[in-house]
């Protein structure tokens, strides 16, 4: 897939702005995956009926522009520092649903210590990571989650682990901390993945509201601008590169940590099942 306009067979089925967005207008690039993730958690908040007890804390990245358009009380934090700010808020307002919105540069580079300690503390908040493996806002530079081989403006020949080190699989790291009650890694590269990720948000928020501990949803998102790929290639690039390393699935549910192999096997089964059902002529919902 290459090109600048949508393929001829794409059908526009309507415009739906989530109720918790003040406007559908945004500052993101065409093909950016972040708005899809934002829609996902805002719809989950709406579905849970907790909009009037929600407080958000935003980090610094492209998604920061949603701080102005998200219709929930919001505190704008520094790059990397949202989890501690959210901790202060939650301790003062224990009945609120408190979430952070951060990117991989924000959370895994600048603020790694914050999110790990917040998870280990079992802080009853939800941290949301939009992981595209690149500093999108600065124009496409390597982050701690950039995958081997990925080209960025400061790894022009691709990330070489012998020179630039290995990516941090943050979801896996957090899943192993006792304070983390629910950990999941979603994606937004297919409609099915968006639906699955929205369910993850819901479970994460339910975990927080039940008081059982820290919850975490990582969402692998497209950044065609920072990946230097054509807009329409974003989802495929995500599937083949970042998605192969940061594997989608629920990493910890009810205290049980699931391995990457387990997730890979589950995803392969789901993909095969979807292909089978599609071939049989029907697919209500891609898993």
């Amino acid at each position, binding site marked *: 897939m290459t090109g600048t306009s949508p393929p001829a067979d794409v059908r526009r089925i309507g415009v739906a702005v989530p109720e918790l967005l003040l406007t559908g207008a945004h500052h993101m690039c065409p093909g950016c995956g972040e708005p899809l993730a934002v829609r996902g958690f805002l719809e989950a908040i709406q579905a849970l009926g907790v909009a009037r007890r929600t407080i958000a804390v935003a980090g610094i990245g492209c998604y920061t522009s949603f701080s102005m358009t998200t219709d*929930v009380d919001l505190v704008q934090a520094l790059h990397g520092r949202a989890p501690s700010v959210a901790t202060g*808020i939650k301790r003062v307002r224990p009945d609120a649903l408190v979430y952070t919105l951060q990117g991989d540069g924000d959370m895994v580079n600048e603020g790694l210590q914050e999110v790990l300690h917040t998870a280990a503390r079992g802080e009853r908040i939800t941290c949301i990571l939009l992981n595209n493996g690149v500093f999108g806002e600065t124009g496409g530079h390597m982050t701690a989650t950039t995958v081997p081989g990925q080209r960025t403006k400061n790894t022009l020949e691709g990330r070489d682990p012998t020179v630039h080190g290995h990516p941090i699989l943050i979801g896996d790291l957090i899943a192993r901390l006792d304070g983390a009650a629910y950990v999941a890694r979603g994606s937004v590269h297919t409609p099915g993945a968006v639906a699955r990720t929205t369910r993850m948000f819901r479970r994460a928020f339910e975990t927080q509201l039940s008081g059982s501990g820290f919850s975490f949803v990582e969402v692998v998102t497209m950044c065609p601008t920072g990946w230097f790929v054509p807009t329409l290639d974003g989802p495929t690039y995500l599937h083949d590169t970042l998605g192969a390393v940061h594997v989608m699935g629920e990493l910890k549910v009810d205290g049980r940590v699931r391995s990457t192999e387990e997730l890979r096997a589950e995803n392969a089964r789901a993909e095969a099942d979807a292909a089978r059902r599609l071939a049989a002529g029907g697919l209500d919902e891609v898993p």
Partner: protein
Amino acid sequence: MSGAVRRALLEGSEAIVEAAVGAGCRFFAGYPMTPFTELLEHFSRRLPEVGGVCMNAESELEAVGMAWGAVAAGARAATGSTGQGLSLMEEALSEITLAELPLVTFLMARGQQDYHQATRGLGHGDTRHVVLAPVDVHEAVAHTRSAFEIADAWRHPVMIYGDYLLAHTRESVTLPTEPAVVPDRPWAVDGTLGGTGRSRLISPLGFAKAGQHSPGIEAHQRAIAAKQERIAAAEARADVGACDDAETIVVAYGTPARFVRAAVAELRRGGHRIGWFRPVTLWPFPGDALADAAGRARRVLCFELSAGQLVDDVRLAVLGAAPVVPIGGISTDSSGFGVGRLLDTEVVATRILAAHRDEPLPPLPDSGGLP
């Protein structure tokens, strides 16, 4: 202080914590570091007793972040550290100023080498915290309550500059028992406005929610700068003694000013026309009051336990009307906590008298190496 009071013999740290709790502080976050540690200890014991929260933060970065969140959520909240720990907090302390959050910070410094740090904005940008420098535990109690009140009145952060002596000295203090009046904070996030189209945004960037008035970065920063000018005009405080007929004025702040006061009193008894001037607020610096006092003097001495930081503000205030003579210096024992041999009333008096007579200063006393 009016109304009901309670007298107690307390260590400075404990007195400050009692005053903070009395002022309605219900959240504290910190990371241990001498001589700040006892403040954290007392908060961690005291706050849960009154339904508050004290967080043992993972580092100073998280401590200031947690306090930021707590203030944004509407609590009277504080954090603190030494100058070293404050260096780690500076990014947040600058942004908290731009976010107009009434945070109180306790700088329990290792001496007086953090004057520039405290008064020159604590980090990046055009920001200043109001800085109060108590001379003793009694005043620290009063300053602690004022700090929360000033912070709320201006929606601006306030810092208390304390030190090892203040933190660890036991004094008989008077604590107000009247409950503090904590003003409403309609700007604070409580989560109740989601989905109404009127949700709040607390941002250092001058941005507002879509559909609300958003000044933008430039106008926002200019508004903060203008507010800081109003604070500077309204909040400068000084404590002045025996300056009316003084030929020599000695400027000092914080606990060392106590030694200067005693030394000057002693020299006065000896018939020397010497007075003292103590900035109570380090920012805003009471420059007008100092210029006024210095206008009648022949020389202005500056006693501080550093290589020379306060002296910058003294020179700016005096503006050449009288010579400014630094008579302090770096002085610390082997612990590094700022309590060296220079902090001795007799030594201070000797240096004041030498400068008063336009004689060369005696060499700085040697506090010795490792014991």
